[in-house]
């Protein structure tokens, strides 16, 4: 329930809009409820008029005609008033609902931007995405529309109920008897149908995956002549979808017609009991008609009340998940008024550094769909007691097996993670006490499979310095050996790349990342060397670009091959989170057995010839 109130809190900035639209809706409902009464009175006037006409009471008949005219005008006035009221109600409520949606989304996104990197390492992106899309959708739908629906339905039922009770309490109670059942059954139907439909969608997703596999893997299927078995498997998936769709269909067939039937009982009661009452002059024909019309009018609100109660329930569950995210405070924060990074040329010191990652999966959903409680547990150290002093302008290579802590080590310089012991200093300043922005702008990373954003080539290069001029961007691209291929792209520097853009080859992406780093003009450069290979000529131009980038900067190289190690002045060998050897290539060949082994086993004999990554993606036989 507290979650529900917190959700309502999102309405607070729109208090006036909410009140205005509720008031407008209220008046509009009054108009709506007036209509059956007016129509009923009209029928009464008609009835009397016909009687009077039959008995040639011309005066009374004229009176009835006049009354009818007044009622017709009243109806027109009521619907015109309702038109205006509803128009403004919709406009205001729409604006409010969109405002809430906007705020929610912005809060969520801004909050995600505040959370530390470690948080994202441990979350499945899918989990976060579903909070930001599915859950947000449920909440905004409820706050935006659900509340209005509930209010409208309740108001209609109440007002019509009152009108009926005032006219004839006994008949009102009998004919309204089905109302709670309809609401209840609609609610139940919503609860049961949703999982059935979700399961259907899940199975369709499986079917899609199945189809995708068969199409992407068509070469394998064909080369082993396994079409019949694959067809059988696919047919299985198709049947599963069919079966589940029928589960949903059967639910619909069971509930929907029943929901349609129940109000008919009320109408039948009105016809019979009300009709008898009119026969015995206990009820006017006009009142009888009004009753029938009221009940007819209530069918819609009864149903939608049931449906929207479901929305409320779903929104509460979703709200819980969203708040869990919003309540998770950032664990890596700046100290207030943190000073800028002092001037310097990139002297990096690690003093007795120990690093542990939290290894909890905070947000893994539990089986019943509710969120698991927060809580962090510390894992085993990724780095322990590492000390390293890299003077400004030096290049150091980090060598070691996968998981030895190379990437973690370089991440500490820009304080992507907080250490659990020791100190990391850049130009003499403890990174934890610095303004994060000034620190991170002094460090740039180039990885072998760099992430590019869905933006133009120019914007990607200028990523670290969005204010850079086109000339500066071009200069950086030239220095990174990227200018030539960029010029040949369809729109040159304005070509879109990234996740949803043009796919560039590995080598091209890498050179863009180098240009991006160059333009940022960092004090410290971090290179994460290639594990996937590019062809020889590309490799050559990347080497030129790297040499340009490293010029005059402190550089950390995570090295996988001999040729990259050769770039370094000194080498540190990591093993299970500790630096086990440190020195020049020749010193280490002498002193470190692990290093010798790594070098001898030939950091993988790089690929012999001529296939660049792009072709690999496209035509794998």
């Amino acid at each position, binding site marked *: 329930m507290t979650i529900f109130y917190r959700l309502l809190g999102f309405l607070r900035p729109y208090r006036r809009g909410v009140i205005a639209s509720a008031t407008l809706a209220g008046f509009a409902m009054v108009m709506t409820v007036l209509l059956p009464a007016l129509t009923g009175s009209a029928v009464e006037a008609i009835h009397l008029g016909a009687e009077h006409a039959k008995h040639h009471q011309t005066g009374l008949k004229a009176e009835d005609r006049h009354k*009818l005219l007044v009622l017709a005008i009243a109806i027109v006035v009521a619907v015109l008033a309702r038109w205006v009221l509803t128009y403004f109600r919709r406009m205001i409520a729409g604006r409010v609902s969109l405002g809430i949606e906007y705020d929610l989304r912005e809060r969520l996104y801004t909050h995600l931007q505040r959370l530390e990197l470690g948080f994202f390492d441990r979350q499945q992106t899918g989990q976060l995405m579903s909070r930001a899309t599915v859950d947000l959708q449920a909440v905004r739908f409820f706050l935006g529309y659900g509340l209005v629906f509930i209010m409208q339905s309740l108001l209609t039922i109440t007002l019509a109920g009152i009108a009926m009770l005032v006219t004839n309490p006994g008949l009102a109670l009998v004919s309204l008897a089905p109302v709670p059942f309809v609401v209840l059954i609609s609610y139940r139907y919503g609860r049961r149908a949703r999982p059935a439909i979700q399961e259907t969608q899940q199975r369709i997703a499986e079917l899609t995956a199945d189809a995708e596999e068969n199409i992407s*893997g068509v070469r394998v299927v064909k080369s082993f002549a396994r079409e019949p078995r694959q067809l059988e498997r696919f047919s299985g998936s198709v049947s599963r979808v069919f079966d589940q769709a029928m589960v949903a269909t059967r639910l619909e067939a069971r509930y929907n017609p029943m929901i349609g039937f129940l109000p008919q009982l009320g109408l039948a009661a009105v016809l019979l009991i009300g009709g008898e009452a009119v026969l015995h002059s206990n009820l006017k024909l006009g009142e009888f008609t009004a009753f029938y019309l009221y009940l007819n009018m209530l069918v819609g609100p009864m149903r939608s009340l049931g449906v929207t109660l479901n929305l409320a329930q779903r929104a509460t569950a979703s709200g819980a998940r969203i708040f869990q995210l919003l309540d998770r405070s950032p664990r890596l924060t700046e100290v207030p008024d943190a000073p800028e990074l002092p001037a310097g040329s990139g002297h990096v010191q690690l003093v007795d550094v120990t690093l542990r990652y939290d290894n909890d999966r905070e947000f893994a959903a539990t089986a019943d769909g509710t969120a698991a409680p927060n809580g962090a547990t510390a894992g085993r150290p990724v780095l322990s007691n590492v000390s390293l002093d890299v003077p400004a302008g030096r290049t150091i290579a980090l060598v070691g097996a996968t998981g030895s802590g190379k990437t973690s080590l370089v991440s500490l310089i820009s304080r992507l993670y907080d250490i659990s012991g020791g100190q990391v200093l850049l130009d003499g300043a403890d990174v934890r006490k610095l303004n994060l922005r000034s620190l991170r702008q002094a460090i740039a990373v180039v990885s072998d499979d760099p992430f590019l954003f869905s933006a133009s080539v120019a914007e990607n290069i200028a990523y670290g310095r969005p204010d850079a001029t086109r000339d500066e961007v071009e200069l950086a691209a030239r220095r990174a050996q990227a200018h030539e291929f960029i010029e040949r792209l369809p729109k040159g520097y304005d070509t879109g790349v990234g996740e949803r853009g043009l796919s560039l080859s590995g080598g091209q992406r890498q050179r863009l990342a180098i240009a991006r780093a160059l333009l940022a003009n960092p004090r410290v450069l971090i290179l994460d060397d290639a594990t996937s290979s590019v062809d020889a000529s590309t490799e050559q131009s990347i080497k030129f670009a790297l040499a340009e980038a490293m010029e005059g900067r402190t550089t950390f190289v995570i090295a996988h091959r001999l040729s990259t190690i050769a770039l370094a002045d000194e080498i540190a060998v990591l093993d299970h989170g500790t630096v086990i050897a440190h020195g020049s290539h020749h010193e280490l060949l002498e002193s470190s057995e692990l290093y010798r082994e790594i070098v001898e086993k030939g950091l993988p004999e790089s690929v012999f010839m001529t296939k660049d990554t792009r072709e690999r993606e496209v035509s794998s036989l």
Partner: protein
Amino acid sequence: MSAHGGRGVVTGRFGPQWDGERSSRSTRGRNLRGLIALVAPYKVRAVAMLVALVVGTAAYLAPPLLAKAAIDTGIEKHDSTALVLIVIAFLAVAVIYWIMTYLQTYLVGWVGQRALADLRIRIFKHLQTLPIGFYESRPAGVLISRITNDVEALDSLVTDSVVTLFQAGLTLVGAVVVLLFLDLKLALLTFCVVPLVAAGSLWFRLASAGAFRRTRETIGSITAYLQETLSGIRVVRSFSQEPVHEAKFAEFNDDNRDANMVTVRLNANYFPAVEMLSGVALATIVLYGGYQAIDGNITAGTVVAFVLTLSYLFEPIQQLSQLYATYQSGMAALEKIFQLLDVEPDLTDKPNAIRMERIRGEVNFEGVSFAYRRHGRGGAVAPDSSSNGAAADTAGGKAGRFDRAGTLPTEPPEVLALESIDLHIPPGQTVALVGATGAGKSTFAKLAARFYDPTAGKVTIDGHDLRDVASETLRSQMGIVPQEAFLFSGTIAENIAFGKPGASQQEIEAAAKAVGADTFIGELEQNYATEVGERGAQLSAGQRQLIAFARALIADPRVLILDEATSNVDLHTEGRIEDGLRRLLAGRTAIVIAHRLSTIRQAGRIVVLEHGRIAEQGTHDELIAAEGRYYDLYRDWALHAVA
């Protein structure tokens, strides 16, 4: 802004080429017939469904008439018995309506879903008959979408629209007939508002179709942007660019709000206005009908029946107007599906194709030339995905490339990917294909596997032209190992057994052992029962390679065609892959697109391809000694590797 640009590239990429095939009027009729044909096997149920619809609609229209009867013949005439009978009839109608809606919901669901299931299987079967060349000329996403998105678009056409069409149509016609029958003049007067409502509804649907598409697009952008930020969070943090992303996100958020506001405005203009018009119609009925009733021309019950039937007039119009959009998208989907089903498989077996018994594995290329052609019946398109603009800076020499606008050149230049290749591979020999990108290595391998037929010359196995051979009997004796080891979701054992249906666990384990995959499988928690995940995502690239080797080995092919992977794996696995490969190649004819020096060195023969021709061939030592093209390549490589 740029992000929009990026997306533009995507739609531009797939749009005009494969999705833009617009439907014409003439094909529409055919498509509709196709749709009906899908339901044809379930005639009885379909007819029952229609009956339920008609009876259900009649029952739906009855209550106003019964209410009229109750007033006119029961209440006004003070006839209590008649009233009771009418109420009984009312209840009976309600029960009939209940039963009919039940039947209709069930039958529509059954027939619709069954038809869709059939269609899915039909598309799938059809796709299976199409040659590899077909797949290479189309983005996989487009084909997948035929069998998923397009079929689902049909779902709403079949299950919603058809029912709405019948139900709303019948209701509308029924209501009109009822009103005309009750009182002609009053009916005609009531109908006055109908054109207004109809025109307004149509306007609303057309306007809102665009507006809703816009909201879907903007919400799509938001989701995509969020997804991207999460994937690139490390870069965002590293460059400390959070404020920039927040500002950009706010832009997307703004766009979405604006797009939604348009729909709010449309709704606010439409729905209240329709309500208002219905109110005006009500007032008209009350006034004119009332005067008529007072004058004794009609009864009070008739006026009530008119009032009650009014909603039966308005609702169907609103529903029918909605159909238009669904109909459009459904027909578009149908069009695309039938276009796919119309593609006739080429490379089919000849009627009297030779069934190959166990082959020796002697492969012969005799004067083989090949050009990728514009896609069409029996043709093939260059597989280099020239839709990808970046391809412009590589391999300029491939034929059949699309120009930048994504259209096909009308008369493609016949650039030969392979030219007059003569090569005899004796049984059991390993041939390593070496050459620069675009030299024709993949094409060579594809012709050997009969993914394509040569433009000139012939490829034979054991002296039989591949075109004369029953492909199933041939393929089962040929192993093809693509560069990216593609695994299917399922267990490791299932993936290995893919090469030999019904293989026993011993056979599976033996194959794994033979290629050296048993060590890492033994280290996995569930061993051979370990799920590999979608596309084998749970395994490393090297492990996938080893499983692909085991899969090929268990099939025991006579001829193996292998595209060696270029991605580096860790030291340990590297060694295993070399061993595994050696075992796999032993004793078979093998054509290997080779990248590793170790593989090349071990090959019985190295064939160096250049611009679609064989530049030179021989063993490693022979070629080094010859100091030709291979020598150059080798020297270049050696320089870089050591540098």
